[in-house]
Structures are given as C-alpha cells and as structure tokens.
C-alpha cells in the first residue's frame, strides 16, 4: 500500500474546475517532484492535500496511510504527519514563531501518544534543528514570518518542517526566488530528513532544485492533469524543451474519438 494514493482527483474553486482527474501514488521513502507551468494546479493540489476548505473536491479520493484523507480536518492531517510548506508563507503578527511551533509540536506529540515537550527540552531540540537550516536565532522570537525576507520565509518553512518531523512533506515551490546559498540550505534541509519512513512531494517550477534534491519520480502537471511521469531525466528534458510539447493540441481528444 502506498503512503499516499490520489485517485481521479477533481477539485474546483468558485465553480471553476482546476484539478481535472489527478492520479498519483507516493510510497514511503520516495521523493516525487511535480513540475508544471503557471496556473496548472500545483498549489491547488498541495492545498487540497493540506485540507484547505476553499477547494472543493468534486470527484475522486485521496488515501493517506489507507485512510480517507478528505474526511480529516487540516490539523488532524498535520498530526497524522502531513506537512505542507506554503508557496507564500503567511505572516502572523503577534504570534511568536518559536512558541507557536512548540504548541504545534506538542499538539502533534499528544496525538501520537508522546509526552509534551517542556520549554527546556524544546529549546535544546529547536536549537539543533536551527543549525540545519542556518536559521538566525532572532527569527525564532519574531512573530511568524512577519517582516521576514522571501528567503527567510522559505527557510522558516523548512525549519518548521524539520521541527514537526512529518511523514509526508509537500513543498510548494520552496525553491522559488532563492539565491543559490539559500537553495542549498533548503535542499540540505530536505536531504537531512530523507529517510525510509518519510516521503516528499516537491513542487517546483525550476529544474535547478532537482540537482540538489534528486527525485525518484518526476510528474508533469498541465491544466489539472498529470500528463507525463518519468525519472529524474524528465526534469532535464523539460528544462530543454519547456512544456509545450506535452500540452495536448486543443480539441485533439475529440478528434481522436470521432
């Protein structure tokens, strides 16, 4: 059984269908990359996985650890091990980055039958994680993402991920807009968490990230459908040729069927 199984997923927002039948299976230990042009539905897929209610699933199903994921509230999903790094991390004035993370971790630990971490243990634990993403201590005590630079926000997402220790991490363009040093930090963060138990769904626009995070599988999402799946070489091919060669000519499907 796969860790994550997406079957014929259709999702819409404001009456407009965005995902038009996505099929995808991810096993533990695997890294899958999803690439696709602007507006193809990558973030929508990520948000549906994380449980954003705005996106209405009209057809299909998602099984996570064999359970119906769509039945679960966003926080339940997080507690069951799903983590999504936001393409656009949200600024939350007044909520401290580190204390909020402690509350989140403890909610997850309680759910998993573990004891809550006290302030001292948590600080030791967090310090260790900070090293991985080379987080500035000052960012710990600031409100979540408030006034962070673009790169700091992305790094903060990876930092949250490493603290929360997910089973399935969905990274939505965590590499976009990063300079090479920051990109390497993000990649190091992911690689250091890579393990037999964990899986990653790495959404990216740019092949470059995949030089540092080597995926097992690459999918191409165009217009709400996965149109091609392959190995890591597919990413290189896309880099060369762009997406146009994969896009079905308009009305082709009808032409074939008649």
């Amino acid at each position, binding site marked *: 059984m796969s860790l994550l199984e997406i079957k014929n997923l259709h999702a819409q927002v404001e009456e407009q269908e965005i995902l038009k039948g996505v099929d995808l299976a991810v096993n533990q230990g695997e890294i899958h990359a999803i690439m696709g042009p602007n507006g193809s539905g990558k973030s929508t897929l990520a948000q549906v996985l994380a449980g954003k209610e705005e996106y209405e699933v009209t057809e299909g199903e998602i099984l996570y650890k064999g359970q119906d994921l769509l039945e679960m509230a966003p926080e339940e999903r997080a507690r069951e091990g799903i983590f999504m790094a936001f393409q656009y991390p949200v600024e*939350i004035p007044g909520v401290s980055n580190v204390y909020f993370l402690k509350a989140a971790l403890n909610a997850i630990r309680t759910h998993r039958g573990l004891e809550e971490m006290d302030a001292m243990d948590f600080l030791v634990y967090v310090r260790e994680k900070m090293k991985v993403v080379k987080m500035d201590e000052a960012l710990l005590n600031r409100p979540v993402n408030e006034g962070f630079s673009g790169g700091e926000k992305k790094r903060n997402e990876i930092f949250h991920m490493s603290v929360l220790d997910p089973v399935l991490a969905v990274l939505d363009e965590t590499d976009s807009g990063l300079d090479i040093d920051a990109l390497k930090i993000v990649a190091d963060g992911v690689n250091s968490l890579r393990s037999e138990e964990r899986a990653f769904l790495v959404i990216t626009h740019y092949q470059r990230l995949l030089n540092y995070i080597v995926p097992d599988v690459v999918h191409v999402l165009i217009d709400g459908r996965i149109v091609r799946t392959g190995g890591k070489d597919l990413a290189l091919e896309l880099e060369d040729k762009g997406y146009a060669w994969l896009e079905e000519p308009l009305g082709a499907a009808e032409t074939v069927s008649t």
Partner: protein
Amino acid sequence: MTTTMTASDTDRFVGVFDTFEQALPASGPESLRRQRRQAIERFSHLGFPTLRQEEWRFTNVGPIARTPFSLDVAVDGVTGSSIQAFSYEGTVQLTLVNGRFVPQLSDLDSLPEGIVVCSLGEALEKHPEKVEPHLGRLASFENHPFVALNTAFYGDGVFIWVPRNQVVEEPINLVLVGNPSGDPIAFFPRNLIVSGQSSQVTVVEQYVTVGEGAYLTAPVTEIIAEDNAVVDHYKLQRESTQAFHMATFQLQLGRDSNVSSHSISWGGGLVRNDVNAVLDGQGGEATLNGLYMVEGTQLVDNHMRVDHVAANCDSHELYKGILEGKGRSVFNGRIYVHPGAQKTDAKQTNRNLLISPDALCNSNPQLEIFADDVKCTHGSTVGQLDETAIFYLRSRGIGEEAARSLLTYAFAADIVERIKVGAVRRDLEEFLFRRLPKGDIVRQAV
C-alpha cells in the same frame, strides 16, 4: 421602548440633591459646595442624554435613566479576601467600596515620604489648598450629564499629590469596588491626581464588583501632569455585566509632560469612557491606548477627545476592540488642533475585530484642525480573523479553536505589550487565557 427621557427620570436625582447636600460634612471649601449646586442645576437642565444627541447617538442610556437608584450605599459588605485578587504585592492600595474610602481594606504602609495619597474626604480636610485649585476645574459638566451628576453627588474618591521632582517607583493601586445588595445603587467616585513638576507616578484604577445586582458607577478622574511630569495610568474595567459604568477621565498635560493612559475594558453591561486630554504646554506627549472586549449584550463606548492647544505636542491613540456575541462597541475619536498648535503630531487608530456576525461596531474618527503646519492621521478598521492565517496554523497541527484564539490574542497583543506594570499585564493576559477557548494552548504559544 422609548428613548425619550421623561421628566421624572431626571427628577429622581434632582429631587434627592438637597437631602444629599445637607448630609455632607460641614467642612470643606465653600467653592466646592457652590460647584455641586451648579452641577445639579446643569444636570436638571441637560437631563439624561438621548440617541438624538450626536455624542450619544449609539449609546442608549435609557436603562440607566429608568432605574430608580438609591444613593444610600453600604460600605461594610466587602471583606479583604473578596478583593484579594485585585491586590498587587507590595503596592500601595486604596480601596473604595461603593465610592467610599475604606481604610481597613487599604494599605498605605509603603507610601514614600512627601507624597500625599488619601481619600478625597481626608484631602479636603487636611489639604484643601492642594485640592481646591484643581477639583472640578478640568472635567467640564457643561455638556455632560454624568460629569454633572458626579460633580453634584461625589461622596468620596482618591487624592494623589506628588511633589515636584519626586519619582514614585511602585504603582499606586486604586480598587473601586461596586458592592450592590438588593436595590440598585448609584455612586460617583471622584479622583484627583496631581503630579508635580518633573515628578513621576504610576496609577492603576480597577473597577470591580463584589456581589450581585444592578448599580451605576459614574466616576470622574482628573489628572494634572505639571511641567515635565511623567504619569502612567492604567484603568481596568472588570465589573459584572449588571454594572452601568459611565466614566470620564480628564487629563491636563503641562509643558514637556508625558502621560500615558491604558484603558482596558472587559466588564460592565453598559460602559462609557470619555477620555479627554488637553495638551496645554509645548512639548507635551499623550499616549492613549485602549482594549475593549464585549460579548453577550455588552456595550462599550469610548469617546476620545484630544485638544492640542500648545505647539509641538504629540498624541498617539491606539484603541482595539474584540467583539463577540451580540456585543457592541462605539469609538468616537476627535482630535482638535487649536489655532497656534503648530507642529502638532497626532495619530489616532481604532481597530476592531468582529468575532461574531451579530456583533456591531461603530467607529468614528474626527479631525478638526485650525493650524496649518501639523501632522495628523487617523484610521479605523473593522475586520475578521484572517482565514489564511487560521489555515496556516491548522496546517501545522494547531486545532481550529486554538488557532482562532491565538489570532485573537495576537490582535490584542500589541496593547498587552504596551502595559509596563507587570501585574496589570499579567491580569490582562490571564483574563484573555481564561476568556478565549483553548486558552491553555494560547498560553503556551505566545
């Protein structure tokens, strides 16, 4: 329901004035007796305000006008243990029960030399020369019925006088207890704080309730910050929802003085706070912050007026409101820049968080500027919790209720953080943790 006051509503107070006046101690300056008579005359002319009056457009005081309050109040219904929660370790405390100073419930042991802190009654006997020049000179009853009632009927209050150059380190804690029993009562505390030149003092004013029942408290607090004085004032309105609270807070800022006021309001059923600051000398700086929280059918009305009379003064106002249930709030902020008040820097912000769709808020900032070289800004917002932020928090494992509470707390946080007296800040934090669903998670996460 009628909003028109009948003559009898007003007469109830006017009718008992003579009896009240005769029972007053014979001592005390004649000028203050005269003032009382002028005030009741003024009240009898003004009557209770109605919704037709601009300043009371959204605040219906009909329930107050219709209630037959008694002015006969008992002061022996409160024990030390019942107000323990409002005491702050090691601070000077003055306790008033139903508007009368109660020495047994007060603690003046650690009072520094030189400073005068006592009941208004005692001050009028022992230091009339310190009281008379100020009392009633600032808070005008000309157009304010409740200030008029207070000026006519104040029984007692607190007097604080800080000599020039004296710095009072510890806050002075005033606990004003409403202790209703049986029939509705009304009382009118009158507080006067005079902070001498280059002095510094911090005052906490808490309004609390012990016991059950309706009552009206209509306090007037006047603060005079003389040149270069620094005064920090905290008001905590934490009365029961059966309380009517109609307060006026009047600030006079001398040259180079610095006054901050923090008005925290979560109690009371019908609450009105008039906050008036007059910047009278160059270089004065007034900071007026507030946080109000309403639920059920509570109404809180904050009416601010800042008068920039002198040049080169700053005023900053930040009022925030959290509205739940069918709660209502009114914010009316007026900045008045007088001719000649050049280089005024005035900023006013009112932000409201509507938690419930049934809550209602009115926000009305006003600028009146009669000088040409000034910087004045005002802004007011009404909003809801940010759903994107809620989703972000939930996606990290925080439950929905906790996420909402966390963001609500965060909304209030910048007011909480501005509170410099640790004990007051902790009181407010504790209140929020108790009030907000899943508050224990919020406690961890902030």
